[in-house]
Structures are given as structure tokens and as C-alpha cells.
């Protein structure tokens, strides 16, 4: 091992911080709510307008009390420097809340410490109040700097006891020098005694953070970044709970050294994590759990130099059955990491998006990590146009494969809502980039799992290729867009309207007020959702209720994009709603009769408390699908995310052709399916086109199946018998009886009619025709003594 590694050991780095000014008087932590997050990494520079589109789609996840951006992989020219400076210099971005602070800040924290190779300010777009902001955003100046040799030498002599041996070691100490300088600046000018005059936004190489009191898209508008191009972006809508006095310093993203992090969630163990950090001479200054998260990330990756995989493990440990399923070598490493970081692991709910810029490695990374229980919404997406050139193009394996001069455009995205991803892609198309909605693939991470580790990492390296891998390094592959059955997706909205030419009325938000009743019951109202607000009294869902009141019974909604509560508020209704585009959360939650069809994936909270009626989803559904449902016939072409059918009762009858992340049918109480109760059929296949599918590795990867269920049943298509009793907590595996098959066959036949997944093919495995009892197993509840009536 080179001596540098030994000498620059983490303890010395941490010890060097002991002389930092202590964190000023700690007030109570700022109460942090949830938020809306979006991140993207492309192998070509994309404009800020696309990120603004994604952020504004999730405006309802913030409250205008904090918005921010991180930008990496920028174009040097736009910042007035050459490429070498952008890559080689620290981009020190300082927010001045008071203009007069600048002189003092520069005199103490910039000029004497750094050689400034270039500097400038971000031009701003006039009056912030015109953009609807209550608090004027800070004046932001950027400095391209390197540590002054003398200052760095002195710093090394003091803390290392000598000069660094080599370039690598010197860089590590220069990082720390920059880091501590920013800490001192923040402690002096931001955190101390209520005086807030300036703070460091970011100090990494080729990574910039901007934030303000407002919405994230306001930052893009205010700093004129609509046409600013960069490869790596994250945007954050903040929803802090306390509502009055806000400073931009509290907005996300927060920085470590080479990374910026945004967060959706809230720690249960904030105080303990702060203690863990303080024991390592790291003091949070901004009193939010997001800052603490990125400090942890910086500690583990830069100071302790954990490989990314182990840093993620320290964040969200693998537990229980998932841990048991890891290979022994990983178990040993993970156990060591868990032991060392147990006191520092943030206790969920949380979801992090991290942007990393490591110019030395010429590497940009975007990663999303979910907590073990997947308590916050998260969607990942990938579009890689490489498949066009080579139909078998496999991402991640591509690096070793074909030689190409210019890699095909590719983009990876992470967001709280799928619709935000779709908006970004749509806007990229508008901006003239080759991307388009839908992405080739959408998926969710399974937190703390053996299957994907609960994290996905997009990387663009020096070759310009974009790879997507899970925590373990396994590549996510695409071979073209996912097949879709949705009409609007394949033919476009115009075709849709034309196809429905027999309809009496097509209406958009502008004409909504003047709507009249239908000619007859069969008339269909075609609604262009684009301009409707996402929720509220003028929103799309309320409009449907209004039109229903006027007698309309058939609806076709297109261009939906995050519109919430579609199909709610109709009461016991005879209604038919076709939904195209990307509908928002709480779709058909409360439906009691009628039919709702979604020709795409739906988001979180679909079919909550569903009482009766039919729901058909030509894609995936998000979290807490059919929570506390009472009934209904439901068909899902793809997967369900975490916690589907929790607390469902009565007689819901559901087919999920894909799989579920975890916690399927916890506390399921739906009677006896053979006597009118409810059940779920999980086929465990991936739709690959008309009448074709591929087998998933297991129909259900999770460790919490049918937990504490007391009624109903789950039918798994599991010819390999991959489901084991270790996944159950209170249920048991039973054989499929004839009457079970008679019960589910009509549902499977309907499933065949809807999606083209034939009963025959479901009963075929490895070329062999199976009996139903060979293809399917049944999970039934066991009577738990602890939960039953006491008998003597």
C-alpha cells in the first residue's frame, strides 16, 4: 500500500477538525416534511428547462418555502472558464444574503486561502416578487479556486505533521482544506447568533448548488438557467412544516465535499446521528436532517473511503431474510459495516438522491437510495437510444462490447413521481433532444434488499457512456421501450381524439366551465387534461365529478400528468373512465362501482378503500395500492410497489401480473375466498409484448408476505416453488384445490382478454404444460393463537 493511504488515515482527517469553531448554540431541529425530488443524469448536456418542467410537476409536494438545484457536468464556456479550469478547480459558490458581507467574506475566506482563477456572478431575472417569491434570493458569486500553496502547506504541517507525500494525498488534504474553510465561513456568517449574511452553496469541482426560498423552478427562472446545459441535475421542492421565517440556507440540496444530496423524509433518530457525527468532530450547522445525511455520506465515502456499495449499506442496512440471502462474502463485509455505523444509520422514512462529481475520475454519478421499508415514493427510469442501433444493446455490458465513436444518447432519471419523469422527457423533446416519453424502463428500488440493495446508480464516465447499476453493480438493461398497450402512448393524443370521433364532445380546461349535459348515456366526454390544475376545485378530478353530476357517464381523459384523485368523489357510481398519460396519486381511491382504465402506469395510492367496480391498469402501480380496499375487480399488467393491499377486507379480487416489492397483503382480512371473500393472484411475469412474457426470477422477492393476515388468500404462479415459508409471517403455503382453480380461472381469462397473457401460457413452464396445481400455489392465513379468542 502506498504510504499516503496509511498516513492520511481517516483519524487524522477527523482530528484536524477538532480545532474548528464549535457549532453555535443548537436550536431545535427544523421540522422537515416530505418533499418532491427529481434527478437526472444524461451523457449529453440537457437544459434547465427540462428540470424546471419536472419540478413544477411536483409543485404540490413543496410549499414554496424552499427550492434548490444541484448541477454537474456543466459546459465550461457558459461559466466563462476553460474546460481544464472547470475540471481542475473547486467551484466555490457563495450566497450573499447581505451584499455588504461580501468584502469581509472574501477578505477572510477567499483571497488569503485560494488562488482565484476566475470569478463571476449569476445573472438574475429582475424582481423576485414578480416570480412570486416572498424572500429575495441571495446574490450568488462563483469562484474557481485552488488552495494557495502556502496555506495548504501550513494546513498539512499542522494536522498531518508534514507535507503530503504525493499528489493523491495532497488532493485529499486540499479537499479537507476547502471543506473546513467552508465550515468556518458558514459558522461565522450563517449559523452564528442569528446573523445570517452569507453561506457556501457548494465547493466541489464541476458541481454547483443553487437554492432559495421558493420553488425549485423559481431558481431556474431567477438565475436564468432555462437554457443552461449540464449533464447532471437534481431539483428539490421543500415542504418544511414551520411556515414563517425562512432562509435559503435551509433549502436542499446540501453538500458534503464532492456531492450534493436532496432528501424526502424525516429521521426518527436525528439526535443520535448528530451525536455520532459530533464524536467525529463533524458539527451540523443548518439543523436539518438532510444536512446530516450528506455529512454521513461524505464521512463514509471521502473520509472513511468506503466503496459506494458499503456507504449505501451504512445508510440503509440489509436486514432479516434479505441479509440471509446475500452471498457469505457480502454478509461478512456488511456485518462489519453495520456494526461500525449502527449509531449513524438514519432511521427512515427517507429517500435520497445524490449527485456526485469526481472530476479526477472524470465521473459523474446520480444515485437514489431508499430506506429499508420504502416509506417514501421513488421511481427510477432509463432511456438509452443505443438500442436503436443494436437491438440487443445491453447497458452496462456495453462498455466492454461494441466500439462506437460517440455513445448513443442515454438518460437516467429518479423522481418522487413517475409523471415528473415523463414531464422532463417531454420537455427534453421540446428542447430538441432525442429523448421522449415514455422512458424505456421504469422501476422501483427494494429497500435494504438482497435483490437490488435499495439503490440504483447512474454513472457517466470518461468514455461518455451512461451506465445504470444497482447497489451490487448489476446492470439495469434496456432493449427498447417497454411494450405498452396504451393507445395514447403509441398513437398520440390526436389519434386518440380521432379514434373517439363518435363522441359528442371534446373539452379542455378552457371550456370546462361551460360544459352541458350529454346527449345520451352512451356519449363520451373526451377531456384534454393538459391545462387542468392537478387538484382542487378547478382540478381535473373535480371536473369529472361536476360532469358526472350533469349526466356524463363515460369519460376519456388524455394528457393527464400528475392529476390527482381521478375517479374520487363520484359516490356509488356507474361510470367509465379511460385515462391516458400519467395520472397522479390516489387514482380511483374510493371508487364504488364503474370502471376505470389506465393505459399506462399509475402512481401511488391507487384504489385505496375501493369498494366495488373494476380497475384495469396497463402498467405498474405505486405504493399502498388498494390500502384498506373493500372489494372490486382489479387487473394490473405490471408490478405493484411496496405495501399493496394492506388492511384490505371484504372481497377485493386482484390480479397482478408482475410482482410486488414487499409487504404484500399485510393484515389481509378478506374472509374466505371460496365463500365470497377476497384474493390476490400474482403471476410473477414480465410483459414483453402481445401474448408474450418472460418469467421473473421469483414471483415475489420480499420477506414480508401476508404478515398477520387473517383472511383471504394469495395465489402465486410459482412453478419453480420459489416462494418459501421464510417469507411468511403468519400464513402458510397450501396446495391449489380444484375449487381454487375454478375461482381464479375466470379472473385469469379476463386477464387474458385484457392483456393478452393467456391462461394457456401461464400454465406452460419450460415448454411443458402444467396442471393448475403445479403452476399455482395458494397462501392461506394461519390462525395465530395470540390473535384468537381465548379458549380454555
Amino acid at each position, binding site marked *: 500500500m502506498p504510504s499516503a493511504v496509511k498516513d492520511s488515515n481517516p483519524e487524522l482527517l477527523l482530528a484536524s477538525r477538532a480545532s474548528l469553531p464549535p457549532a453555535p448554540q443548537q436550536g431545535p431541529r427544523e421540522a422537515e416534511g416530505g418533499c418532491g425530488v427529481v434527478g437526472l443524469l444524461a451523457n449529453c448536456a440537457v437544459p434547465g428547462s427540462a428540470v424546471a418542467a419536472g419540478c413544477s410537476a411536483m409543485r404540490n409536494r413543496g410549499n414554496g418555502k424552499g427550492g434548490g438545484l444541484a448541477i454537474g457536468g456543466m459546459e465550461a464556456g457558459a461559466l466563462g472558464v476553460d474546460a481544464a479550469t472547470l475540471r481542475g478547480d473547486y467551484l466555490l459558490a457563495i450566497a450573499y444574503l447581505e451584499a455588504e458581507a461580501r468584502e469581509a467574506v472574501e477578505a477572510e475566506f477567499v483571497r488569503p486561502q485560494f488562488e482565484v482563477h476566475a470569478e463571476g456572478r449569476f445573472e438574475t431575472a429582475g424582481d423576485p416578487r414578480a416570480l412570486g417569491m416572498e424572500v429575495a434570493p441571495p446574490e450568488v458569486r462563483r469562484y474557481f479556486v485552488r488552495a494557495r500553496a502556502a496555506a495548504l502547506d501550513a494546513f498539512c504541517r499542522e494536522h498531518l505533521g508534514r507535507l503530503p507525500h504525493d499528489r493523491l494525498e495532497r488532493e485529499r488534504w486540499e479537499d479537507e482544506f476547502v471543506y473546513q474553510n467552508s465550515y468556518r465561513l458558514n459558522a461565522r456568517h450563517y449559523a452564528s447568533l442569528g446573523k445570517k449574511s452569507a453561506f457556501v452553496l457548494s465547493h466541489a469541482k464541476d458541481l454547483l448548488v443553487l437554492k432559495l426560498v421558493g420553488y425549485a423552478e423559481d431558481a431556474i427562472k431567477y438565475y436564468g438557467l432555462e437554457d443552461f446545459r449540464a449533464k447532471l441535475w437534481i431539483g428539490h421542492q421543500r415542504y418544511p412544516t414551520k411556515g414563517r421565517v425562512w432562509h435559503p440556507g435551509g433549502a436542499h440540496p446540501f453538500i458534503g465535499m464532492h456531492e450534493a444530496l436532496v432528501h424526502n423524509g424525516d429521521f426518527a433518530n436525528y439526535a443520535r446521528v448528530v451525536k455520532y457525527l459530533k464524536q467525529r468532530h463533524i458539527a451540523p450547522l443548518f439543523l436539518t436532517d438532510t444536512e446530516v445525511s450528506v455529512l454521513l455520506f461524505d464521512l463514509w465515502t471521502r473520509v472513511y473511503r468506503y466503496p459506494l456499495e458499503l456507504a449505501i449499506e451504512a445508510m440503509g442496512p440489509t436486514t432479516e431474510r434479505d441479509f440471509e440471502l446475500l452471498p457469505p462474502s457480502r454478509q461478512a463485509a456488511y456485518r462489519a459495516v453495520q456494526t461500525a455505523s449502527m449509531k449513524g444509520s438514519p432511521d427512515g422514512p427517507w429517500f435520497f438522491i445524490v449527485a456526485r462529481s469526481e472530476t479526477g475520475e472524470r465521473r459523474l454519478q446520480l444515485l437514489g437510495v431508499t430506506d429499508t421499508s420504502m416509506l417514501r415514493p421513488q421511481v427510477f427510469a432509463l432511456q438509452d437510444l443505443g438500442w436503436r442501433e443494436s437491438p440487443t444493446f445491453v447497458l452496462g455490458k456495453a462498455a466492454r462490447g461494441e466500439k462506437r465513436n460517440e455513445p448513443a444518447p442515454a438518460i437516467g432519471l429518479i423522481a418522487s413521481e413517475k409523471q415528473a419523469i415523463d414531464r422532463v422527457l417531454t420537455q427534453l423533446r421540446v428542447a430538441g433532444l432525442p429523448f421522449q416519453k415514455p422512458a424505456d424502463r421504469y422501476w422501483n428500488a427494494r429497500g435494504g434488499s438482497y435483490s437490488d440493495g435499495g439503490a440504483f446508480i447512474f454513472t457517466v464516465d470518461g468514455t461518455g457512456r451512461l451506465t445504470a447499476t444497482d447497489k451490487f453493480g448489476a446492470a439495469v438493461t434496456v432493449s427498447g421501450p417497454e411494450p405498452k398497450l396504451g393507445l395514447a402512448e403509441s398513437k398520440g393524443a390526436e389519434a386518440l381524439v380521432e379514434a373517439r370521433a363518435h363522441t359528442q364532445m371534446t373539452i379542455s380546461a378552457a371550456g370546462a366551465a361551460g360544459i352541458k349535459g350529454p346527449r345520451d348515456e352512451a356519449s363520451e366526454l373526451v377531456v384534454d387534461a393538459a391545462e387542468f390544475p392537478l387538484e382542487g376545485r378547478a382540478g381535473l378530478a373535480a371536473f369529472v365529478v361536476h360532469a358526472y353530476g350533469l349526466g356524463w357517464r363515460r369519460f376519456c381523459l388524455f394528457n393527464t400528468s400528475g392529476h390527482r384523485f381521478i375517479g374520487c368523489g363520484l359516490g356509488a357510481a356507474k361510470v367509465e373512465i379511460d385515462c391516458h398519460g400519467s395520472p397522479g396519486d390516489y387514482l380511483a381511491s374510493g371508487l364504488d362501482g364503474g370502471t376505470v382504465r389506465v393505459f399506462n402506469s399509475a402512481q401511488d395510492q391507487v384504489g385505496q378503500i375501493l369498494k366495488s367496480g373494476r380497475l384495469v391498469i396497463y402498467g405498474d402501480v405505486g405504493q399502498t395500492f388498494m390500502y384498506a380496499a373493500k372489494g372490486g375487480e382489479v387487473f394490473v399488467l405490471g408490478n405493484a410497489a411496496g405495501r399493496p393491499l394492506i388492511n384490505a377486507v371484504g372481497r377485493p379480487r386482484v390480479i397482478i401480473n408482475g410482482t410486488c416489492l414487499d409487504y404484500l397483503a399485510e393484515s389481509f382480512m378478506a374472509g374466505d375466498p371460496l365463500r365470497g371473500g377476497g384474493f390476490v393472484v400474482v403471476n410473477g411475469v414480465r410483459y414483453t409484448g402481445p401474448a408474450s412474457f418472460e418469467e421473473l426470477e421469483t414471483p415475489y422477492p420480499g420477506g414480508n408476505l401476508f404478515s398477520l393476515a387473517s383472511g383471504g388468500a394469495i395465489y402465486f404462479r410459482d412453478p419453480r416453488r420459489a416462494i418459501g415459508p421464510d417469507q411468511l409471517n403468519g400464513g402458510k403455503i397450501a396446495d391449489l384445490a380444484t375449487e381454487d382453480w375454478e375461482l381464479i380461472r375466470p379472473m385469469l381469462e379476463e386477464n387474458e382478454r385484457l392483456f393478452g397473457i393467456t391462461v394457456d401460457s401461464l400454465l406452460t413452464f419450460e415448454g411443458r404444460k402444467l396442471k393448475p396445481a403445479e403452476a399455482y400455489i395458494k397462501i392461506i392465513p394461519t390462525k395465530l393463537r395470540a*390473535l384468537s379468542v381465548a379458549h380454555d
Partner: protein
Amino acid sequence: MGEPLPKPRAMPHAEWRKVPKWRVRYSAECIDCGLCIPACPYGVHRRAPGSLRLGIPDDFGCLGPACEQAHPAGPEAVFQEGFCVRQCPTSAIALEKNPEWQTLGDPRWSADLLFATWTAAETGRYPAAGFEVRVGDSGGGFDRLRFKFKRSRHERARDTELEAIDTAIPLARRKEGPRLQIPVPWYGGGMSYGSVGLNVMLSRAKAARAWRTFTCTGEGGYPQELLAYKDCVITQIATGMFGVSETTVQAARILEIKYAQGAKPGLGGHLLADKNTGAVAAMRETVAGISLFSPFPFHSVYSVEDHRKHVDWLRAMNPRALVSAKVSTPTDVDMVAVGCYYGGVDILHLDGAYGGTGAAPDIAKKNIAMPLEFAIPKVHRFLQAEGIRDEITVIASGGVRSAHDIAKAIALGADGVVLGTSELVALNCTRCGNCESGRGCQHGIASTDPELNALWDADWGAQRISNLYHALRLELAEILWRLGLPSVQALRGRTDVLYHLDRLPPP
């Protein structure tokens, strides 16, 4: 004040008698002269028509020696007539504490409070004297708070003065949206079908309708019989969402999201197997004989922006309803309160730890979260500093037993309160604490057992609760009168009229 409020109607119980506090006995010296009969304004001494002998004294009305101070004709009357013991020419009347008395009650619900509440439910008035109805014996919480009255306890208000005192509060305070006011600063808390029987739910609903206030479904479905009272029934949406459907959401004028329960914060609702009978399971569409647990969180609400979405969802289903959020009292309850407000909530319901029936686990009861008397002012002041106090209604609950508790909660900063156990006590609950077992409630309250439920009917129960409401209003009006305040709204946040036994000497 709009329409007049209901009047009380005597409503004793035919089968059971209360445990009397005092025992009245005649010794052999008694000459049956009957002088004691007119001496007692409460009818303890009596003689059957035509009989020469005195009957067995009716102990239940006896106030004990305290009646000397509380003679309805004024203190002078006592001197003239004396109370029975002194009036007896042969000193034959013996007055002694009933030895059974000490078996009654517990520190929070003292025997005095229980007995006085039963009396109130029977007659519409608390006993005139001789019972401590201001505090219990817990030695903490509201029991260590006292009022600094302007008028002494010996001053008596005229009935017209008490009637003139305004006890109404608005429930909707936002600038936009529906208006709603209740004539008394309380409504009934959530009790599910299953935790209590249908007769209890109907009694509470009928009383709520008579008083133009509300009661709440709890989380156990919405029995058909309750639909007739939907204008005064709050639909509760708790974490298991049993019985919550669009129909029941649309039926309500108030929707209550139960995020947590003060008696057991961090735990969901639970109904033990014994109480999950066939009828209860059918109402919840579950399997009978299995313990039912609601999850401890809402699986769709893990953050404040989820909360806003959740409220928006309820509004999408029922745009006309007020939305209440019932939360427990963690140390950052002020943040919770502000988050609720910005999430669109109309009523913030702070549920403290002193409540809970016998079904709440002992380890949770009173051991988790911040005491209610600290939480209320914390929230009240924080909302004031935030400038939004007058746009949200703050309701306190969890161990509110009496008019004094109501007044204290309001003086600490709440707008009103929610009653739970008090209403059950009005139905003859003795606080025996067997609520979790199916046939454990001998009074047929916390049970859906048909035989036990048949012990009394909903009209009887409704009148008992209505009588209690009458007594509470009267007592509350008297407190306000003694404080020199014209209305209950004027009391809100007046911590200056309170003192804590640990902090201040009595004035």
C-alpha cells in the same frame, strides 16, 4: 344563542343503584316522629303513605354533612331547620361513610367524580355539595390546576345570569369554506362499533343531535342505524379504514383523520378477538374471532406533504366537510399543529394521555407523549406566533371528565374539548376496566353482546348523556360567571386565571 338547549329529564336506572357515599341509619331510639323528612331537601328520609314507620332511607341522595352548607333555601335555612342529624329529637340518626365507597373509582376518576357524574346523568345537575367534582385524586395533570376566581364559591348566580353566558364555539374558522358552530364547547369522541355496542352509538348520536353538536363513529364501520343521524356524526378515518368508503365519507359534515390516540400513541387501534363477534366482523368486512389491529401509521402518510395530499383526497370525495386531524402530543406537537394547518385541516384535535378505556394497554396509557396541559399552551402559543391561531380550531381530549377540566383545557388555549369516558360514565360505567373482553362489561356498554346490550335502550342512554351535557353546561357557565367572563370564547388562552399548585401560592 339560537334555539333553546334541551332541558334535563330525570332518568334513573331501574335495575342498578349507585354505590352511595353515605349510609343513613336509624337507631332503636327512633320514635318515627318524621321531623327529618322535611329537614332533608333531597328526599333521603321518607315514609310510605299511610305508614306509621319511617321507610328505609334513600342513601343515594344524601350529601353527608356538606348539606348544611348547601341548603337550597340558603345557609340561614339550615340554621333554622338544621340538618337531619341535628334535627332529630332522639339523636337516632347515624350518618356514616359507606365502607363500599372506597372500592369505587380510581385516582383519575375518583369515587366523587363517578358518583357526581352519575347524578348529573340522572338529574341534569351535579350534586349541590359534598362531592369533589372539580378535580380527581390523580395528583397530576388537570388535578394540579386551580382557577383564580373573582367571585367566591358562596356567591350564587341567578339562573338567568347563567343562561346568558355564551358557551358556543365555531368549529370552522378558516376564511373560506363552510361555517359551523356548536352551542357547547364539546363533542363526542370516536368509539367504534365493536368497542361499544350500537345502543351506545345511538345514544350518543341522539344526544348530539339534541344538543346540535357531534359524535364520532370511531373506526369500526358505519352502522345503517346511524345514517339517520349523519348530520351530527363525524366519520372517522383511522389507519385501518374499517368501514370507510366514499359513501360514509360523503355522509359526514366533519371528517376526522385519526393519526394517533393519546392513550396509546404509536399504536394503532386494536380490537381483541373476544370482541370481534360475527356482527362486528361483518360490519368491518373481516373474519370473526380474530384480533383486529389497525396499523400504527397511515401507510400512505409518512410526511407532511403526504398529509396534505391525504386531506386533499378527503376533500376530493367530500368538498363540503370540515377536516379534523386527531393527533397525540409528542414534544414537537407544535410542529405537528402547524403542519396540520398548512395541510388544510380545520380542526386540530390534540389527544392527551389521560384518557383511554380499559382496552388501552397499561404500558402505553399515561406513559407516552407530553402531558396534555403542556401540549395545549405549547400549540396555542405557537399558532399565535405563526399568526394562524384564529384560522384553526383546537380541540383537546384525553381525560376530560368535568366542566372544570373543560374550562381548564380552554383556559390553556383550546377552543373546546372532546368527551369520551365521561359519556360512558353517564351510561353507568363504573371504570371496572374490563373493556377489552367481549362480555366483560356488565353494563352492556363496551360490548356488542346482544344480551348485555338489551339491558337498556338508546333513548334512556341519550337522555342520560343529554342530562350530563346539561349539568356540564350549567357548571361551565358558573365557572365563567365566577371568573367574570361573558363567554367561553373569552376564556381561551387565559392562563392568567389558572394557577398550578406547584408554582404559585393561592391568591
